[in-house]
């Protein structure tokens, strides 16, 4: 493998990893605060993809429609998330994990079938938008600009989220609720509203990933199932509830997948699960999580 091929793999691994980071960060934030493992998170991502396809194809005559979709799609998934939280999840916070798992599994089925009902079973593609189409050269090698754009998006969102969590009043409130729900409630923080807000934030992130992915991949049913398992792997590697953990985990999984495909294609799927098992056995709070 020459240096050019290696750089190419690194780049494609990182760009997929960054999209996975966007989804996994939402999953992780939701788990950290709401203590719910949201199986339907991948489906929210998929809906983001369908929305991107639907907006760009229906209003194709509007210039720069992709960028409009990039704003509207995540907002729509965030609103959907708000409805889910208020009408369904809110009723089961006190219940065992099993019920949360099954309820969110039911959501996978319902939302997935609704996507099938609305957009059909075919594959859809979205063309790469201006001005991030085309290629660019780095150190004399040619790469698609879109991949680099995705990496920049991932890093920007990561920095933005960290800044919000660390330095703003909103971030303090979220951290307080995550740390101790009762105490935060006693101090006058509207905990249910924070829960709804955090869940909407998570769904916004999934929707953002969903709208960013189509130009590089396809929009199709079933992508949710593959993505949610990847997200579990990332969140476990990094530590459940940890944002920087999700970032590291996504980079690791992205690179493992990219190099695995070219070196040991048969074992690639297993690598992610093996990593997950090893982490769960020797350090179940993850690389950057906090031991309980």
């Amino acid at each position, binding site marked *: 493998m020459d240096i050019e091929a290696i750089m190419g793999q690194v780049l494609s691994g990182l760009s997929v990893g960054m999209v996975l980071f966007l989804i996994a960060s939402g999953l992780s934030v939701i788990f950290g605060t709401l203590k719910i493992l949201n199986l339907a998170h991948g489906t929210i991502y998929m809906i983001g993809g369908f929305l991107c396809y639907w907006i760009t194809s229906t209003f194709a005559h509007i210039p720069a429609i992709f960028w409009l979709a990039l704003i509207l799609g995540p907002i729509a998934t965030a609103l959907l998330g708000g409805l889910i939280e208020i009408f369904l999840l809110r009723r089961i916070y006190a219940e065992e994990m099993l019920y949360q798992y099954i309820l969110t*599994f*039911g959501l996978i*089925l319902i939302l997935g079938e609704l996507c099938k009902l609305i957009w059909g079973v075919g594959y859809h593609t979205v063309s790469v938008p201006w001005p991030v189409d085309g290629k660019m050269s780095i150190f004399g090698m040619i790469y698609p600009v879109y991949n680099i754009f995705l990496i920049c998006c991932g890093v920007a969102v990561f920095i933005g989220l960290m800044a919000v969590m660390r330095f703003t009043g909103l971030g303090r409130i979220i951290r307080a609720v995550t740390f101790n729900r009762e105490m935060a409630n006693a101090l006058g923080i509207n905990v249910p509203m924070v829960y709804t807000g955090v869940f909407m934030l998570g769904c916004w992130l999934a929707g953002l990933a969903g709208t960013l992915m189509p130009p590089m991949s396809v929009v199709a049913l079933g992508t949710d199932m593959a993505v949610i398992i990847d997200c579990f792997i990332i969140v476990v590697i990094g530590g459940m509830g940890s944002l920087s953990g999700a970032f590291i985990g996504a980079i690791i999984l992205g690179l493992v997948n990219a190099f695995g495909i070219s070196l040991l294609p048969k074992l690639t799927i297993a690598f992610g699960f093996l990593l997950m098992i090893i982490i769960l056995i020797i350090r179940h709070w993850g690389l950057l999580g906090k031991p309980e």
Partner: protein
Amino acid sequence: MREIIQEFFKKTLTLRLFWLSTAVILLFILPLFISTAYISLISEMLIMALAGCALNLMMGYTGMVSFGPAGLYAVGAYTTALLLKKTGIPFAATMVAGPIMAGLVGAVVGWFCVRRTAVYFALLTLAFAQIIWTIFFEWYDFTGGDDGTVGFRKPELLLSINSSYYFILLIVIICLILLWIIVNSPFGKTLQAIRENPVRTEFIGVNVKRYQLYAFIISSLFLGAAGSLFAVFSGSVFPDYAHWIKSTDMIVICLLGGMYNFLGPVIGSAVYIFLSKLISGYTMYWMLFLGIIVVFLVLFMRNGIAGFISHKIAPLIQENKETEK
């Protein structure tokens, strides 16, 4: 005292035994009345009922929520199928080998899993099941990969649907009786104590981790048995038997029937498979209805059908009787 005993016999034992034996007799004479299509449907229900009960030993009785029972189910199915296809050993031996192999894999997987609790336990079982799925999926030369393992020999006796139905019925009943004995033994009571409060159970001198491991292994054995039966029943095995979607099916079956009832998964399996065939006959959006059913169950009927009957309907009947008096 005598009256109490008589009352006890009248109310619980006689009624339950009566209904159970009626159900079993009905199951035995069913092939005389209904078409083979329904017979194979009922065979499927029976196998899933066994898988559900096996999972329920771990989930409902010991309180360990596993996301990966399908992995062990698939180990049983593949072991039997591959032995039948690649070796000449007797059929009965392959049927025994399936559960034993699943039990061995369950012992290894369980040894790691019981060290973790709650969500970490569940995710670990999920990861192991996905590894098993990957092995069956990628080891093309041995398992046939995505095409599955098909075309293995079957004993002549089991070629007809009716005889294979009786075979399945017999094995499932034997397994359920064994599970019933386990659940009601001191061992089973200890498992329930662990479910209710692991810390207190540890304090009274029970090695909780070891008991959880035993429950994991026993559950794996019976999951493997269900897998072996399904391999023989369908004549083909596929990697998707180990997939987490299949695991979720099993969990839904337990939940639908009622986790805190021994026969809950049996009811769950019958209703689930019946509904899936019924609804998917009318619409291609069966999954939508399944999703709605699942959400409804979690929100309004957490104890499943069995729980609903014993908590809501049984008191009504008793009230009626009392008012009649």
